[in-house]
């Protein structure tokens, strides 16, 4: 089954839409989903032209396609556990919250909190991702716990904050403090960043670009070889964050290893 949701023009296009109902399993039985535009409850049809093609007997046979002005739609794919969502353009915040299985493909850019507290499945963002990509929620001790988030472009600040399991791969640059409070899982940064892994207590982070300034609280611990994008790199190994009880691993390129402030 293919469900195509094309946005209708809106009078107030900046008012955010919350559409946690947009997950494959919900289209098996019904189309009369509620979505919210600001503080108003709307029918799915009020905001989207909905086209359904073909049958499905289980959610993994459902593919949802979002097109149009989708950059303000939040929470698409929340709690998704099967099937696939393809977003032709940009997507709003919290795409794939708590997702446990299935696949989300974002052809454009994703706003902040992409894959927040994700448990499993796969998110591919072909453009850039915002702040807190693959992160957790305020006050919680664990962020993303499983699955894969892959960003082909850049990502913002606090990427993979509190990462506890699973894998976050950003091919481009990250902002400040990627992997901050990280306690498990893997973070791979293809490009540059600054102050990676502040206060980390576990997990592994690998930075293939310039890591900017490293925090003083990482202890050099030999070197190793790593592979990324089909190339091999000589990596300096750091353990940290020793300001904490840190047992995390930070790998930075031996040839780009940067200043310690």
């Amino acid at each position, binding site marked *: 089954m293919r469900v195509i949701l094309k946005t209708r023009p809106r009078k107030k296009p900046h008012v955010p839409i919350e559409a946690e109902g947009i997950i494959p399993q919900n289209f098996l039985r019904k189309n009369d989903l509620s979505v919210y535009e600001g503080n108003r409850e709307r029918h799915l049809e009020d905001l989207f032209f909905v086209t359904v093609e073909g049958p499905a007997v289980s959610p993994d046979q459902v593919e949802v396609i979002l097109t149009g002005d989708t950059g303000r739609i939040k929470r698409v794919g929340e709690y998704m556990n099967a099937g696939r969502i393809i977003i032709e353009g940009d997507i709003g915040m919290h795409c794939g919250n708590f997702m446990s299985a299935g696949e989300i493909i974002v052809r454009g850019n994703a706003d902040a909190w992409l894959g927040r507290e994700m448990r499993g499945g796969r998110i591919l963002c072909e453009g850039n991702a915002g702040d807190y990509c693959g992160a957790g*929620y*305020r*006050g*919680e*001790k664990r962020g993303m716990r499983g699955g894969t988030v892959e960003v082909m472009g850049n990502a913002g600040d606090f990427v993979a904050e509190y990462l506890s399991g699973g894998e976050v791969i950003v091919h481009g640059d990250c902002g400040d403090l990627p992997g901050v409070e990280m306690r498990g899982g893997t973070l791979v940064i293809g490009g540059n960043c600054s102050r990676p892994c502040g206060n980390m207590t576990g997990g592994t982070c690998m930075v293939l670009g310039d890591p900017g300034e490293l925090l003083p609280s990482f202890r050099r611990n030999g070197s190793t070889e790593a592979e990324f994008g089909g190339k091999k790199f000589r990596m300096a190994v750091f353990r940290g964050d020793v300001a904490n009880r840190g047992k995390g691993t930070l790998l930075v390129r031996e040839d780009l290893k940067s200043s310690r402030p």
Partner: protein
Amino acid sequence: MTQGILIKNAYVIDPLSGIRGEVMDIAIRDGRIVEEAPPGSQVIDAGGCLTLPGGIDSHSHVCGTKVNFGRYMSPEDMRAGRTSRKGVMHVTSGYSVPTTFGNSYRYSTMGYTTVLEGAMAPLEARHTHEEFTATPHQDMLANTLFDGNWSVMEAVRDKDVKRAAAIVAWTLAAVRGFAIKLTNPGGTEAWGWGKDVANIHDPVPHFEVTPAEIISTMIQANEILRLPHSVHLHCNNLGVPGNFRTTLETMDLAPPAQGNRQTLYLTHVQFHSYGGTTWRDISSKSEDIARSLNSKPQVVIDMGQIMFGRTTTMTADGPMEFKLYMLHHNKWSNHDVELETGSGIIPVYYSRKSLVNCVMWAIGLELALLAKNPWQCLLSTDNPNGAPFVKYPEIIALLMSRRMRENERKEIDPRTEHYVPLFALERELDWYDIAVMTRAGQAKALGITRIGKGFLSPGAQADVAIYPLKPDQLDPSVDYQQVMAGFSRTLYTIKRGRVVARDGDVVVEGANSTIWTRSRVPPGYDMGSDPEFTKKFDQYYTVRLRNYPVQDVYLPRGVCIETEAAL
């Protein structure tokens, strides 16, 4: 305006009136229980369902600085229990530290109409009273903290009981408090230096008084002032393996009762009944504690039951919270209050996989089952320290059903039984015991029967809870699931003659009262004009004496219990 309700066919248990289970009618008029309902009264057919006086929680943390800080620091807790505005009900959030309306609605749907906030720092009393106003469905009382009060400790050092009494009288009246609360007496002052006291004879740094002296003096002061409640004590060494000795020694400090009520109330005694020397060999000493309790009618305790799951611990016992933080390494808040007390907050998770937690769980139940007299052991979780109060129905069911305890035994750490006597106890509490432990006993211990709390005979306040439970058709020992469900949600909760909750929904906007006490003292004992007291106040507090007392505007429906001090 005359408002009447006639409750027909109620299966009433009203321990204070000597009714142990009798199908009868209850008439209500103008907020009071009366002989006969006025014409045109609303008729409620209770259909033989269990009908009790409104529930009273004699030790709970629901309002004030540290409770609100528990909310403030825990957005993750707020994700549970979120409800939107519905009818007269406001938005609520939170599980272990719900918003004020969340607390109020949940208590109300469980049939609770009176709640005592367990710890109010005098300096921050205004905050507690503001939250009382936003907890509209329960009449509220505030235990007022004196554990690290400098003026009190100086009076204790000078062995001047009368001065201690005068300070208490002035403070309670100033902050609209209800009773004397001592939390780890002396320990909170020591915590001002990052220290604690080791036992009740360990002197408090600088002040050179011992916890035992503070406790004894305050008990005497309390009786001099003829306060309705006794000293309400959170013993030293909370949560420390081997602390049962401290607790036993403390119980020995309680002088014989002079009248009808205890001279010492020990709160959350589960946390104070540990044997062993470390967390590795912690064991239950509930039998020792219960033995002492059973021989001392002058002592009343509450359980401080823990239940498995997550919660937030919060107490004025600052040093204890720091020790707990060192074990859990999650997050820790602390808030010392100048010249008075302290407080700490940390989130915890009580796990069935943790032997220590299982032992703690067992001890609470054991205390209730081993206490011969239900009037001496009241039901509490020290909400939310042992568990959020919404767990009360589950605790009731555990106390009423050995079978349920046996089922739970299969789920917990199998080593538990070697450290606790719980599974050898056959006792199953009955409906009457539960009625005592959840309302009548509280009313008596708090001394608020005099304002009509805790009973249902004519003259009483019309606080009534009707539960969907038919005692003559239920065997709680077997049907514990029904017991649990029934106590979770009343058919009707009636507060001061008005139906406030029905079938789990709150149906009116509340308007509670705040109950406080004032002891009249002779002019010579008025601390407000005592030169030494006022001078020290000006020197060491950071608010002016004149800005300290809580104004009347904070108690729109204050109920003052006045006493004549024997000074």
